[in-house]
């Protein structure tokens, strides 16, 4: 087993973390940094519950080795709100009743944020496609899709 000391930025804070070579980014976030908002649903890259932003891209953190994150910038669900103000996708998920058990929600929020960052005006299909890696068993998805749509509209107005 190899051991490493890595330096990375998580939710804006610089962190120095000692990790073992087989530790995943998901394990590091949850076990070393106490960021338990990111969820473990399958540990095999299939359900999307562990989605985080890594250098701006949405990744399944269970499929990324922590050792690969040296120098990376990670954003988790805990880092979406800025100065106590929720991100617009957080607000629209709340407003549109798109949260039930909440276990897929952190991953959904990150996937939605990644989509809007790279494509501020997505079509309905693009939204559904971007969320297709985030399994949800409670909501039936449509309210989530609608929430992302509304978030895009709000951000479009703010940006205009």
């Amino acid at each position: 087993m190899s051991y490493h000391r890595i330096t990375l930025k998580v939710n804006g804070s610089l962190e120095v973390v000692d990790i073992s070579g087989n530790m995943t980014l998901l394990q590091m976030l949850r076990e070393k940094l106490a960021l338990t908002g990111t969820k473990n649903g399958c540990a095999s890259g299939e359900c999307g519950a562990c989605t985080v932003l890594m250098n701006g891209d949405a990744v399944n953190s269970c499929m990324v080795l922590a050792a690969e994150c040296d120098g990376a910038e990670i954003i988790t669900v805990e880092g979406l709100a800025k100065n106590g103000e929720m991100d617009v996708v957080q607000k629209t998920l709340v407003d549109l009743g798109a949260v039930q058990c909440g276990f897929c929600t952190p991953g959904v929020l990150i996937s939605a944020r990644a989509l809007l960052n790279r494509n501020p005006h997505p079509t309905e299909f693009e939204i559904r496609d971007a969320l297709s890696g985030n399994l949800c068993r409670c909501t039936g998805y449509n309210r989530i899709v609608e929430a992302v749509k509304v978030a895009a509209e709000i951000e479009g107005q703010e940006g205009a």
Partner: protein
Amino acid sequence: MAIAQASTSSVVGKSVKRIDVQEKVTGAAQYTDDIAFGNALHHCRVKRSPHPHALIKKINYDKALLIPGVKLVVTGEDFPEYVGLYLQDRNIFARDRVRFVGEGVAAVVASTEEIAEKALDAIDVEYELLQPVLDPEFGASKEAPIIHPDLEKYEHPNFIFPVNGTNMANHFKIRKGDTEAAWPQCAAIVEHTFRIPQVQHVPIEPHVAIAKAEENGQVTLWASTQSPFAQRALLAKSLHIPESDFRVIAPLIGGGFGCKAGVTMEAIPVAAALKLKGVPIKLLLTREEEFYTNFVRQGLVIKLKVGCDKDGNLLAMENTMYWDGGAYTEYGVNVTRAGGYSSTGPYDIPNMRTDSICVYTNHPVGGAYRGFGMAELHTGVGQIMDMLADKIGMDRTEFHLRNCVRGGDVLATGMVIHEVGLPECIDKVARALKLGEKEAPSAPNKLRGKGIALAWKAPAMPPNAGSSALVKMNADGTVNVSVGGQELGQGTFTAMAQIAAESLGVPYEAVKVLGPIDTRYSPYEWQTVASRLTWSMGNAVRNAALDAKKKILDIVAEAWNEKPEDLDIKDGYVISYKTEESIEIKDFVVYGLPKADDQGWLGGPIVGAGSFMPTYVTGLDAETGQGERAVVHYTTGAQGLDIEIDKDTGRITVLYAASAFDVGKAINPDMVRQQMEGGFVQGLSSAMFEECQLVGGEMRNPSFVDYRIATAIDVPEKIDTFIVETAQDDGPFGARGIGEHPLVPVIAALANAIYDATGVRITNPPFSAEKIYMALLEAGVVN
């Protein structure tokens, strides 16, 4: 004193935001796996049977104990007692024989998960293979090998009827009227057999449990569970621990759908903890284990015969159901019972003969799954009613309306049903779908069709399942409501806060209902299952709030020298209708009121207590299934889909779906709609994609790649939901449950739409593109 403004608006019936949503969108919500236990935490992994049916000849774990970091190995030898909710047929670990692939035979506790996993390979289990039973009909036959030779010794309640010396763990019968005499009077008769496969619940949060036993006898279990109190009761009994010493802490759960009801894997870390005291021991199932070792929705073979007269009036039905109960049916026997007493579906049928048989097989263990037998039952009933309507030549919607249950009907069990809004539900769905209007497909290679199906379901539970609640007043006027029912995502904490606020007379914002549920401090609740909380726990919360209100008014009445009847609480103020005096409740609900002469005090800290338990459910005769009141009530509804099928691929696209359910009273209409939408999509997923592929007893698709569930691209863009409200006489504000029902009719409604589109009836789900294409090919619809 200021005169309080009387509240003009009611919070019951309002779509307030869910109480737990802020924490869920910020990552702050704590689920079981999120609890930190520090360095003392030990990990547990389970050695599982690779065989569906075998005798255990020898278990040797000496080598496992030599691995550094391994602390303990436990096996069935250590825990001889049975555990089970309805039929106590299961041990915590297999003892002398294994009965399904994945059954636990031993558990290792080690300092890390990796070491525990590695130690499993060092455990040798010697088996003698036995012939497995892999089909419920065969299992019920005389030729089948017996899976539970000790069936006659198992404890069970008096409403479960095992057949000793067979694999039949429960045989529920209905004999009403005379079906044999009715058949000659029928102008049309349809017979068909439907097969519904096992499906898995697939909560996104896997099962997880942590147990710790102390030297002083205290045991604590932290678990992702729908049933903290049932787990306490069942495990405490099996392990000889007083309930008062057994504490179950149940944080928010990441989806349950029935698989976290009763006792499942939680027993394993508890058992291990009793042998290794003082340290917390954690078992977190892998996704693979989640698929093949947990409760499944039972498979079902349902043989239906149904007939009507020339005007389309239903005259008789025979319904024989073989439920694939799996290796242990401790919970599944009651699915069979529920399927039995509801076996007509929501139809008024004067002559009924039902045999609902739970059969032991060497398949995964069947348990509760959202709908509790109803989706499986309705897959048959919902299709055969359309088939009969077509055969007698009647408009399908008219046929459903003519025959659906209505208030005052005598059901197959002899129970007289309360008023139901089912006809209104059918009407709403039929109009929304424009049923009867044939619409053009979007392309020449597509076929378009519409289908509906009806649904009913009663809470399936013991007759005396109870609830309780506490309403605790705080000195700033806020209120904490304690309940024992679990927040699964269905929104029950929010609905309870609404009921408490309305009943007490305080603003909704003042009331908090929060987890975790903790059996040491939370009041008793039977289980969070059966769509029973809004109704049952809602009644307990209302009673607790009314108790607190009475205590508050009594104090003020004495202080003001008025009668309590002349006082009320509005928006957090006690007001007098007589004198127009008012006082804010926060001024006295903890510290009391000074007496009028200032010499001494009145009152004290206010705690309201409330309970609810139905007292009127009667037993049913073992031979005829007849009794005065089989169940507490039924929630009814209808659902329909408008679909297209691609002739080149067999792929279904759902263009539109509509649901209508009679919820009695929607405490929170938007959350009722959320249940209707989410339940529909879960049902659609099972209808289109889902099946546990069991080959020789082994599940071949235990991953999200091979067991596909619906994703955001699979669901119709538009789903309309209609709320019908026919008040429940004993529901809080008239409410009854809705959590499970939207999933119930989906498979039948989709099958009916497929038939409408193609003229081909494909009866057995899942309706995969491949299955549809092959059926169209065989029928000559495509070539």
